[in-house]
């Protein structure tokens, strides 16, 4: 295992220390339990937007804490959801009197831990709502399974709801808005290489030089399909096809296209893939009105990419464009 770390068990704690040092004016970083909070939290009279999950997906979620996006992020150990106490402490730290919206990626662990935290917080009289993000079309959705995973779409929910909360939208409005973004968002990822979890010490799976994995998750889970490696045109077409057929996206739709690196794919390749995706969407009559390209919802050093497509309307565009000031996303201020 080749990593710039000390003790594998201390990776998250040490990274948080670095994050605190890097963003002293923006963030308050707590340890025990770990939380990344807006420096100015709690913001009185505003819905507090809280998210979190296992570490290893940075900048998700801690990199999205700040005015216009999250009030708090709860980082668990690498690829392991945070505990209820941790989430509860974050809720209490940022609750500004207007309720708390939990944005939770749909994984059993995250759901159960956030659920428990929400129960505790409710018992203390804090109005807490939970919205599950489940945008990954790689996973078949069914009542009898764990359901779809939350992946790239999480960022969009956090940005858009965070903007609404910043403007003073109430908890009902924020919750409905989050549900609306989730309903209109689909993602699919692929990998060229696996990642290595520090406490595991070896890659989560092995791919031959001429293989790729389609439909991977963001926790080093293998995907649903292993295929011979293809040129970028083929790879991107697979992702675009699966995503647009799923919702389905239709001719005339306005959309945000988010081309995401799983961590190890360089920007040169990412922009190349983004260009192909834009072309394919244009061919289908889908108008890309906003875009984001970069390593935002990652899986450690995994090489690969995901595409996320989100249906837009004027309201969502306005909220997407609203000022945001976080470690990883910043505009308008």
């Amino acid at each position, binding site marked *: 295992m080749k990593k710039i770390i000390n003790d594998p*068990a201390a990776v998250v704690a040490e990274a948080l220390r670095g994050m605190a040092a890097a963003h002293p004016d923006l963030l308050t970083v707590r340890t025990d*339990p770990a939380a990344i909070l807006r420096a100015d939290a709690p913001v009185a009279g505003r819905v507090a937007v809280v998210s979190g999950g*296992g570490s290893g997906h940075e900048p998700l979620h801690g990199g999205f804490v700040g005015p216009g996006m999250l009030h708090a992020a709860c980082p*668990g*150990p*690498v*690829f*392991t*959801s*945070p*505990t*209820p*106490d*941790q989430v509860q402490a974050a809720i209490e730290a940022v609750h500004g009197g207007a309720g708390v919206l939990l944005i939770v990626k749909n*994984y*059993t*662990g995250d759901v*159960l*831990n956030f*659920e*428990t935290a929400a129960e505790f917080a409710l018992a203390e009289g804090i109005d807490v709502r939970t919205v599950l993000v489940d945008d990954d079309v*790689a*996973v*078949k959705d069914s009542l*009898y*399974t*764990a359901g779809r*995973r939350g992946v790239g779409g999480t960022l969009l929910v956090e940005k858009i709801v965070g903007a609404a909360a910043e403007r003073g939208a109430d908890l009902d409005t924020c919750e409905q808005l989050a549900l609306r973004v989730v309903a209109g968002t689909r993602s699919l990822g692929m990998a060229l290489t696996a990642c290595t*979890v520090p*406490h*595991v010490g*070896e890659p*989560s799976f092995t791919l031959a030089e001429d293989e790729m994995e389609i439909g991977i*998750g963001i*926790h*080093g*889970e*293998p995907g*649903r399909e292993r295929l011979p490696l293809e040129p970028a045109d083929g790879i991107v077409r697979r992702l675009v096809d699966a995503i647009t057929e799923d919702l389905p996206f239709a001719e005339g739709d306005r959309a945000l296209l988010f081309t995401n690196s799983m961590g190890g794919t360089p920007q040169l390749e990412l922009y190349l893939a983004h260009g192909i995706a834009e072309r394919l969407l244009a061919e289908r009559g889908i108008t890309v009105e906003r875009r984001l390209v970069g390593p935002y919802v990652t899986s450690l050093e995994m090489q690969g990419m995901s595409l996320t497509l989100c249906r837009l309307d004027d309201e969502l565009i306005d909220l997407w464009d609203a000022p945001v000031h976080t470690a990883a996303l910043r505009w308008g201020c």
Partner: protein
Amino acid sequence: MGCSVEDVTAAVRAAAEVVREYRDELVELDREIGDGDHGENLHRGFTAVLAKLDGGGFDGPASVLKVTATTLISTVGGAAGPLYGTAFLRAATALGDASEVDGQLAANALAAALEGVVARGKAAPGDKTMVDALTPAVTAAQSTVDSGVRAVLLAAADAAEEGAASTVPLVARKGRASYLGERSAGHLDPGARSTAVLLRALAEAARR
């Protein structure tokens, strides 16, 4: 005569210590069809449990299990944290204020644990989860209630091991392995395995 608060403490301690031994195996099982953290998660949690047990001050068997539960909930994370946490919490509730645990109580506690896991996780037998180990364990325990805690737990552990082994051919329908679809078949479920390991350790530590 059943198990005292000291006996229960010793049994949980023994189980907690055994997790360290199985850490790597559980990591490896979870790496194959999950995200590779199950062994690390339980190891972190049960290490914290050991520290808590050192603190002592338990007024009955239920309080030992309750501290174990809250410690697991606040340190394990992932799916296993709330599930095992709930299991121990429900088991504690089933023990009530009894100062000694007998075979019947032990079987009741196991049944309550299973109910708790199902209530939280909504998994049915055959979904390839810890429920596949715990369900036969409860049945086996219930048919040996008259033979003392140790016998009850040994029967439960045997059944749990068989139940865990039965997950190998299954296609997962709950938890992270479900994302793999058909590719999850052919692997042992890590949570079912850890359930069997924990029950075996509890049984072997039970003095009566």
